């Protein structure tokens, strides 16, 4: 009986340890671009480590995975990342450093370092994906209390 109880305790402890891992590493968020040509997965990093929202007045990095929904061979040739507060008619006070690397076939990885939301309120993050012909936007909101 004691042995069974020990096993149960160990199983519960193991399960709770597994459940803690995703909380330490926030999951990737996913958004489709505004004409549906791309799937963009994104997450935030602070000092190189995944971070939770909100991130008011703290420098952070946006990490992006971009995949084409059409031709699987298609990858972006350039990516622009920016953020704005539409209600306040302004953007960030900083210009992020954007790096684009080609990942597996049909996907690209990008980072925008040095992002800073200097005010509370609704921020719209804009990712403009250039395929060499058109530049298509993906966007999402982040609201800081």
């Amino acid at each position, binding site marked *: 009986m004691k042995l069974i109880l020990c096993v149960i305790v160990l199983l519960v402890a193991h399960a709770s340890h597994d459940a803690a891992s995703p909380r330490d590493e926030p999951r990737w968020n996913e958004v489709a671009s505004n004409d549906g040509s791309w799937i963009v997965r994104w997450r935030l990093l602070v000092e190189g480590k995944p971070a939770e929202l909100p991130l008011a007045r703290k420098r952070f990095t946006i990490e992006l995975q971009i995949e084409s929904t059409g031709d699987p061979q298609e990858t972006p040739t350039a990516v622009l990342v920016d953020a704005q507060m539409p209600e306040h008619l302004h953007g960030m006070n900083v210009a992020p450093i954007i790096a684009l690397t080609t990942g597996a076939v049909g996907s690209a990885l990008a980072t925008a370092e040095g992002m800073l939301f200097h005010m509370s309120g609704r921020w719209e993050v804009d990712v403009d994906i250039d395929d060499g012909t*058109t530049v298509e936007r993906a966007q999402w909101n982040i609201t800081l209390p």
Partner: protein
Amino acid sequence: MREYRTRLARVMVVALLCALSSTPLAQQVPVAVPSSSELAGPFLWQSAGLHEPVAVAITQEGLVAVADGCGEIVGLCATDGSRLWKTSTAGTETLVKPAGIAALADGSLLVADARRRCVDHFSSRGEWVSRFAPAVAFGQPTSIAVGSLGRAVSGAATQCVALVDEGCHEIILISAAGEELRRISRESFPMKDGSRALPSQVAFVGSGLLAVSASEQHEIFILDLGDAAAVATGAPTVTASAVSSLSWGGRGPFPGLFNHPMGLAGDGEWLWIADQFNHRIARQSHAAATKGEGKLAYGQHAVFPRAGEGAVHYPVSIAVARDVARGAQRGALAVVCEPFERRVQAFEPRATEEPADLRLVLPKLEGVQSHFGGSAARAGKRLFLHDPESATIVVFDLSRGQPIHVSTLSGAGVKPHETGRIDAMVALNEGRRLLIADGANQRLALFELTAPPAEVIFEPFMGKLVKTRSYARLDLPRDATIVSIAQSDALGIVALCCEGPRIVTLDRSLRIATTLPITAPDTTASAVAIACADDALVGVLFDKPAVICLYRFADNEWKPAGIIALPATVNARNLAAGPAGQWWVVDAMNDSIVVCRADGTTNTLGSSGVADGMFWLPGACARGEGGEMYVVDTGNHRGQEFTASGEWKLTFSLGRTYTRPRTADEVLKIRKKPDAPAVKGATQ
């Protein structure tokens, strides 16, 4: 009676307090601080009745010469603005589009004709003398200025002509004898973001110093043309890189900022700037240490059409002279061109110093304005107009029987979701999407409205950018202009590029594009608009002489399918396809819409004025779902709707719609401008 007693008591209390106080009553009344507008100089006269005054020059002998973009040059008396002479010919040729005018030292005139691609020399009485600089190849000559070249190292100033060629976006320096000296490329106009500005207008502001406005970039440049002797001899050491420049500007209303600066003038001390969308003439320093400083400005209070004397509205050109014969006396004179009001106004620049306690007058906005530009788009229950001043698109919902403003898209800037100069629009997907041609940012931009068309709720963030496509990826010439866009189920999106001209065909994702030339009439006319009829017939409008050329797409090319000639007086601006095979031509100069029916007959809708049913510089029209016509009455800051049979139905703007027709006096009263009907012919 009780009220009077109360007032009397109050007055007595105030008097008692003043008597007890050691401060005199007079000093407690605020002293009026002079405003930047009042100090600039008093109004002298205006000369109305012009068609499209786009450039002006003043001679020392008291002549004010005006280039009218409709094909005339007009001589006015500097004393009172009375007309001395008018001409529309240059030798055996007819003037087509005078765009620049300058006075030589002997009082004769140089006139740049953008369409005839030449510069003509006229006497001070308006008589044609000769073709100026016939050996110089001009693309599209516009602004022209006369000044001295270099720093006059030999003592004698070398007269020089500077001319903006908008065909290649260069400035050409020409000697007084008509020999080309040098071309200044766009590389001399660097912007902070690394891009290059495009020169719009020029003026000499000192010996060898040339001021250049870059309208689309809202920037002013000062070029040092370098050593006079070296330039005059064409020495190989003098190149475009020898031109040093300083610049200032940016888009905004405060002094030192501009909103589409156009014409320039120098009076030997100050630079005068026609700040078009700020409705003012700014006087600023152009010295390196104080560049952009100076708060005095003319006009600034004119935001209403047909505003009275001294109120400047969309100025595009200015000339300033310090010593001009005005009747029996001599004095300073400044003359401003306002094609939007079809007039020029003269001021007497007086103040030279600015007091420290100057009261700054900024462009005034009295409530909601409806500064609609020259394009319109309608699909489903949505109508889209645009505002050039703020580079925004306003969205109207039509589902309730009258246009209701439900959203505003975009705004001025260079980011992908921002716009610079909106040249054309087309509504797609039943009004859920809008494609615009942004000439300043050289791209097409596709927006989507998130709220369903049925919801009539003002939602400022309804629009989002979907995608853009650069003109550079459309097989178009560098700095091309897409002047008009249309769409049909059979053809998709068709965009008209006036260079060529060419038609760009796009699918609705903007990914598949084909650019092909079209055959154009063998005239000086320019392609200005495109429209699609229901049967996949495409009409392209040419402005002057005005014709609609019809095309069908077959065998991978645009094949001519007919020509509709328009009356000789028409100066065409825009085109829409009406019901039953009709073509609607916007005639901006004659303030009317020409309806061309399928049977070959035509009739005219509207006339010049401000009463409902009348127009002032109409910019565009769009067809409603039931065949009704929406007209952008640009010069009256409003839109009007007409039934399919051509009867006035309603007038609308951003904050007002009404269905009872108003007279001109009633309309002007609504505009709250007591001195409004000052321009002759405005109150018809």
